[in-house]
């Protein structure tokens, strides 16, 4: 019988990290503040898979990526990347990974895109002839010919993101870390980048991805880990995760409402029997604040009448209310009590 062997290229074992920051409380006085970023994180990523890390802001995603790419030392635990220990063999780890961190500050704005790639390629000691060829291949692969020879200071945010992505590919590493790779891209470019990520996987690369976009995680990731308050709260394939909330349903409600009233309404909905989790976010429009409420419940038929009553009694305008099949976003809400996007 033929068996498929999974070879783990990233292993994290009980990683812990505490930040000690100093908060100014006067001109020369500082107060120490401890922030627990990781509370014992363990997982592994198999060779050739796209592994997604989902979590709200401050959940510990960036801390985890920084530890795995050697930018940060863990306080406890162990991490192995491509067979190398991140603390004991950092240089070998750095040779094994390509990294795209979030933000526009990763590039030299007074250099052209090509000069940036040449510079970082040289730091990886890529031989000149190979580097030149590789840059041309990456430029063609990402379709960035139009701006690669312009100074980065003239780039749009999206173009900078694409160049940062190109930079992550410059050392042709087997493992690529992508921190929110489509965050500043227009929808067309975002779709293109997702296709490129799939192609990289087809080439045998292992991708470690963080994203706020659930559809992106569902579309791209072979497995997903949900991190919240420094702990991995769920891990598995998107389908496996959805199965963990099998038997539960989601209800999506869009209302026009003011902020204080929303708090009252959601508190009341939370008290309805059969409601497990509730979360909401607000977007402003010309008509006022549109509140999107997402509810995880046992049976929508049972909770809809009391929910409608609460909404109508509070005089809110209902735009939309619909029971839905649970998505990855609902898994996230179920485990963290928060909406991701």
């Amino acid at each position, binding site marked *: 019988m033929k068996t498929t062997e999974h070879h783990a290229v990233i292993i994290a074992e009980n990683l812990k990290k505490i930040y000690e920051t100093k908060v100014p409380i006067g001109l020369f006085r500082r107060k120490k503040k401890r922030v627990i970023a990781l509370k014992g994180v363990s997982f592994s990523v198999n060779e050739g898979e796209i592994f997604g890390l989902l979590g709200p802001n401050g959940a510990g995603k960036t801390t985890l990526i920084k530890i795995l790419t050697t930018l940060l030392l863990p306080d406890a635990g162990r991490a192995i990347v491509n067979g190398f220990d991140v603390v004991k063999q950092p240089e070998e780890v750095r040779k094994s990974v390509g990294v795209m961190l979030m933000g526009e500050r990763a590039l*030299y704005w007074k*250099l052209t895109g090509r000069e940036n790639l040449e510079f970082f390629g040289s730091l990886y000691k890529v031989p000149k002839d190979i580097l030149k060829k590789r840059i041309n291949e990456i430029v063609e692969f990402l379709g960035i010919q139009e701006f690669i020879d312009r100074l980065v200071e003239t780039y749009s945010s999206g173009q900078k993101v694409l160049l940062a992505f190109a930079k992550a590919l410059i050392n042709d590493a087997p493992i690529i870390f992508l921190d929110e790779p489509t965050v500043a891209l227009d929808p067309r470019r975002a779709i293109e980048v997702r296709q490129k990520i799939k192609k990289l996987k087809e080439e045998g690369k292992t991708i470690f991805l963080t994203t706020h976009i659930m559809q992106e995680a569902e579309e791209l990731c072979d497995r997903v880990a949900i991190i919240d308050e420094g702990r991995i709260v769920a891990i598995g394939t998107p389908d496996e995760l959805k199965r963990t909330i099998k038997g539960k349903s989601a209800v999506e409600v869009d209302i026009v409402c003011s902020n204080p009233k929303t708090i009252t309404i959601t508190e009341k909905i939370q008290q309805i029997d059969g409601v497990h989790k509730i979360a909401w976010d607000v977007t402003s429009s010309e008509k006022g604040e549109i509140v999107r409420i997402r509810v995880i419940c046992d049976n929508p038929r049972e909770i809809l009448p009391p929910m409608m009553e609460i909404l109508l009694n509070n005089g809110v305008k209902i735009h939309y209310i619909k029971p839905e099949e649970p998505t990855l976003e609902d898994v996230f809400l179920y485990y963290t009590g928060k909406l991701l996007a």
Partner: protein
Amino acid sequence: MKWNPEPILAIFKMRLKVYSRYPGWIILDIIAPIIFSVIPFLFAVGIAGSLERAAEIFGNYAGTREFLFYIAIGSAVWGFSTGITWDFGMWLYEELETGTLEQILLTPVKVYELLLGAILYTSFISTINFFLSITIIAILFNCLHYVLSIDFVLALLVVVLGIIPLMGLALFFGALVLKLKEPWAFFNFLTAFMVFICGVFYPITILPPIARAIAVVIPITIAIADARAIIFHLNFIFNPKIDLILLIVYAFLWPLLGMHMYKRVEKELRQRGEITVF
């Protein structure tokens, strides 16, 4: 394994390209040595009344009447040395502020490659400034014969020898800048302190004994004093042999100390997650 200098050259080329995209910097770097060269002349005339009188007074304690070229040598060597000493730390801090330090530290580049790349760039710019200011002074004040002498070449060798311990000093200051994250306050204080202690404008013999003892620990002092001693046939700090031994000892001591300090601070930054904090 074959040594690959590519990261060192890449840092040099990258910095030179960034420099070339600020024409104002280039113009300032050409004009500044001319302005600084004229200041001692104006000081001398202002204080002593005439150039002749200034030369006489200066000759009494320094051993040479050629005070303009004496000061020019001091300030040129000092400018060159401090450029090397400070540039690494200031560059690291600049990279920290712009966010690119994090990107550099994600690559397998080694500390010494970062340092050598930075020093190659600074040496290149500082060498141009050095020869520019020396040549301007020599032409303006009729001292060109000093520049064209074999002693001047020997003096340059002493300055070049002084670069090795300066690399260690550069690492040391680089580490301090990254740790304290207040490069300008630190830079301004230590620049003024080093002008005072290294004998840029005067021989260190006029300093109090404790200051002289501190001065000789800094390789810049020896480079300045010995360059002058060779050109003007004056006394060395101790004697040529001891001064040379001191420079060689510092060439081992300061890089070791600097490397130790830098690695410690880098580890601390990685521990605290402060590679992006400035």
